């Protein structure tokens, strides 16, 4: 890749999804010339939108924010692949040198019932927010910052928690899953918080509440295809799903045998 000529440009055929909320939507075809290979995929979309505006037509709506691969806002299913053809990369960090001159590129929104299309390529990912609201937090004393070394965390545990915390909540796992399942996302959050000492008070409650919120948001069930891991821009592994299953069963068993019949609640 490094040997590529920076001033090389591409002529592309783009099939881009156009949809208004409440209407069915369809692909629109556009040609775009002089796309630098150094442009990111979002910059290419910016070029397309500028061309549309110059023609007096409506630009395509798409989500984006940091454009440095950490915010989780950019989405887009590119040629059937969430975040495009390069594993471990978000759409904003995908560069046009990965496409051929004259190539037809199909761009569509995340496809899942739990992610309804708001407009064009923008989907409503508030199902994820509801999962986070249900259990994606820890109870802490607010005010002055606590002394960092008061709570020792083993290196291996902090590494594993950090690997899971890499999840940026973009939704590519749902979009790539043939069942529209959010287990990789929920697994990453449960793993991140449940293995750290700071996450222990809510541990059982979190696993139960997040799975409940996930089911209520209309996500599908995991059947262990492994597509989510293969498409995750942060390469989160199926380990977090195995851990979520384990945490859920553990919480259910503890709840079943608890004297009050209720899971331990954080802060109680």
């Amino acid at each position, binding site marked *: 890749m490094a040997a590529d000529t920076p001033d090389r440009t591409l002529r592309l055929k783009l099939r881009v999804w156009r949809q208004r909320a409440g209407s069915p939507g369809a692909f629109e075809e556009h040609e775009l010339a002089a796309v630098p290979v150094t442009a990111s995929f979002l910059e290419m979309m910016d070029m397309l939108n500028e061309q549309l505006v110059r023609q007096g037509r409506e630009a395509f709506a798409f989500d984006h924010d940091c454009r440095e691969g950490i915010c989780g806002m950019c989405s887009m299913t590119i040629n059937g692949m969430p975040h495009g053809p390069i594993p471990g990369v978000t759409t904003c960090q995908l560069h046009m040198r990965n496409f051929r001159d004259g190539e037809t590129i199909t761009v569509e929104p995340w*496809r899942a019932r739990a992610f309804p299309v708001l407009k064009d390529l923008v989907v409503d990912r508030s199902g994820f927010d509801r999962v986070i609201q249900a259990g994606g937090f820890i109870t802490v004393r607010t005010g002055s910052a606590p002394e960092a070394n008061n709570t020792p965390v083993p290196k291996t545990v902090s590494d594993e928690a950090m690997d899971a915390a890499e999840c940026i909540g973009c939704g590519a796992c749902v979009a790539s899953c043939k069942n529209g399942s959010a287990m990789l996302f929920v697994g990453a959050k449960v793993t991140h918080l449940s293995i750290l000492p700071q996450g222990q008070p809510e541990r059982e409650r979190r696993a139960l509440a997040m799975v409940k919120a996930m089911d209520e948001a209309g996500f599908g069930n995991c059947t262990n295809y492994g597509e989510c891991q293969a498409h995750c821009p942060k390469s989160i592994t199926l380990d977090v799903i195995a851990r979520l299953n384990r945490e859920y069963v553990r919480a259910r068993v503890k709840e079943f045998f608890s004297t009050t019949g209720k899971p331990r609640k954080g802060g109680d």
Partner: protein
Amino acid sequence: MSDSSCQVCRPSSVGKKVVMAITGLVLAGFVLGHMSGNLLMFKGPAAIDAYAAWLHANPLLLWTSRIVLLLSAAAHVWAGVTLTLENRAARDGGPSVDATRRATLGSRTMPYTGLVLLAFIVFHLLHYTFQAAALGGQKFDSVYRMVVTGFSSAPVSVFYVVSMLLLCLHLGHGFSSLFQTLGLRNERWRGRLDRLSLAYAWIVALGFVSIPVAVLAGILK
């Protein structure tokens, strides 16, 4: 989780998956045992008939197994159908271009192989357990004679062989998958369990297939 009364009537996604995994483990264990018993066919009529007589002489063992298997199969089918329908709805059609990276043929065909196996089980029970189908109305006291007669029909044997190859595909995904669902898998063990799963599936399938093939080839007669 205040509505704990409804946990049974509306189980969670993970709950249904656990039902799938545990019943799958029971059924996977059963097919290995069943296949091992069947191989006594190669030791001759006396061996397999004695094995059958021993099973029937232990009604407690026989009926406990039958009830556990029946309940497992029913729960497995119920969970499978429910999960599949929910997953179809949740997927909402999917992207217009298919770009599958990792999902195996076995994993993608689980509902179909499962339904064929359900039909196979019904036929198999009518065929050999109740001796009510495809045996020309005959009733056998000798298991050996019943099996040889049954598999002498080429269409019946082909159906058995095809069904067992589909069982291989089903087990190849299911056996490793059940460890993942029960939370007993990680990246290090995933490859090992996938290979173990594949080996398990082939051993079971080839063991079963060997009998109709041996009958048709004239090795068992």
